[in-house]
């Protein structure tokens, strides 16, 4: 069974421990600008929203990569292969969710890969705003439906989803 990150912004207190944990585990430093997950702070509404890659079924980033440097692993996770990534950044503009970022210090792109199956953000979250759950329990289908719903109401979810 596939697992996915489930995010409940209502439980987020904005402590940003997820960002610190992500940066430390993936970059070896506490530099939240290199975190794959971001917490957006809507202070006018006193609301915090953690935000990261949802591992699209048929991913825009993967389709846009000219050198096959983004592949899908057995868990359905879209993974960047640093040895193949040339740093062209096309995936960063192709991902309409904005969850692939360029890392100038390595010349490669970075995105959430669920830390290989044990996401540090979920482990670090003290309020269960970010949990790592079986997809059926995580409302994954609901998420897909949401992704499919659009202003026009008819478009499929993903660059490659047939009508």
């Amino acid at each position: 069974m596939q697992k996915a990150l489930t995010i409940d912004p209502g439980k987020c207190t904005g402590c940003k421990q997820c960002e610190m944990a992500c940066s430390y585990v993936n970059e070896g430093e506490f530099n939240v600008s290199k975190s794959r997950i971001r917490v957006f702070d809507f202070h006018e509404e006193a609301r915090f929203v953690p935000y990261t890659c949802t591992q699209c079924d048929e991913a825009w980033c993967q389709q846009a990569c000219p050198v096959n440097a983004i592949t899908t692993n057995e868990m359905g996770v879209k993974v960047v292969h640093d040895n193949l990534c040339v740093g062209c950044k096309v995936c960063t503009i192709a991902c309409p969710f904005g969850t692939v970022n360029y890392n100038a210090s390595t010349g490669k792109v970075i995105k959430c890969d669920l830390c290989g199956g044990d996401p540090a953000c979920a482990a670090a979250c003290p309020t269960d705003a970010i949990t790592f759950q079986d997809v059926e329990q995580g409302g994954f289908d609901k998420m897909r439906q949401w992704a499919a719903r659009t202003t026009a109401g008819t478009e499929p979810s993903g660059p490659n989803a047939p009508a």
Partner: protein
Amino acid sequence: MYHVILGAGPAGVTAAETIRKHAPDAEITLIGGEGEPPYSRMAIPYLLEGKIGEDGTHLRQEDGHYETLGIAYRHGPVISVDTGARSVTCADGSTLGFDTLLIATGATPIRPPIEGLDSPGVHTCWTLEDARRITEHAQKGEPVVLVGAGFIGCIILESLAKMGVDLTVVERGDRMVPRMLDETAGNMLRHWCEGQDVRVITEAEVDAIRSGDRAALAVHLKDGQTLPAALVVIATGVRSNIGFLDGSGIETGAGVKVDPYHETNVPGIYAAGDVAEGINLSTGHNDMLAIQPVAVEHAYIAALNMCGIATEHRGSLNMNVLDTLGLISSSFGTWEGVEGGDRAVLTDEAAGRYIRLEFEGDRLIGAQTVGLTDHVGMLRGLIQTGLPLGAWKNKLIDSPTRIAEAYVAVMQQGPVSGYTGPKVALPA
């Protein structure tokens, strides 16, 4: 069904794989125009600067990828299409019949009418073969003249500069990348390049390339200047490879004409990628959008239709991202704006930062950025969904850096229960 695909670039390869996914028993032949494994032209600049080897340019990395998928890959190029007999003829005289055909033959560099363009040491930068020749000539410290500072020219600029040559860029327009960035952003790129010892000459045209005394070649500009060059690289635009369709009855303009299903006027014959005039999402009209993500979108839609899965294309968004010696710029959609629309601008040239957002009503329709890399894809998301920004429009006009916040806030509107991730309108 027998599917034949002309062209082994991103569009051709994506189409072949998509057909295989939806039609396990179909016969598929992919015909390449060059004697190379299917590769990515986009990777060539990185090959030049030594970031990857030739293997790294290949579109698919696994050994036996095409054989495993039952995709026959053969060398062409195809020189003619017989729509009556439903067959294609290759340069070696062999013919192949087809049930459905995909034209994904891409584009070729334009060779401007310049005296001496055929001299040794003058190259386009388009194929792996071009890359091999440029690598031979682009020796450290040698004078190199790059003709054209459009999008492709600017990507080549970066690799030539990294190869350590003494570089001069000659551009006909009034700024760098005039079709991707406005004057402010284009000039930021120029000043950045000049700060890194790349000479940039705009509003200049090459008159002739002759043998020189200070270097092997001398590039003569129309204004009388002469530039020494050990190597001249031509990047003055591309045109669709449609010449082989002359007399076939397949309708062409600047590229192959297609309907929203990417089918040409001849039933069962489709076109995708740089060769096709697909729908531009921003205008609703058919247009040439010669970029990798669009090629892949076209190919996917054409392939589904070739398999009998009727799929209409809503249109592709024009977008580009460029790294010019470390200064990163991007543009999306109708970046030049529309009459009566509103605009948000942030300019900080000293910090190498520029954001220009264009609105129509309270929707984002275009954007360009310099120095922005975080969450830059959200600009695509906002433009492509056309979601109303509501109060966020004015917040963006006040502070354009709040793009990511605006995106997350707008995407969160609507019914919320359980998962609260982004909702995005995606093209078919």
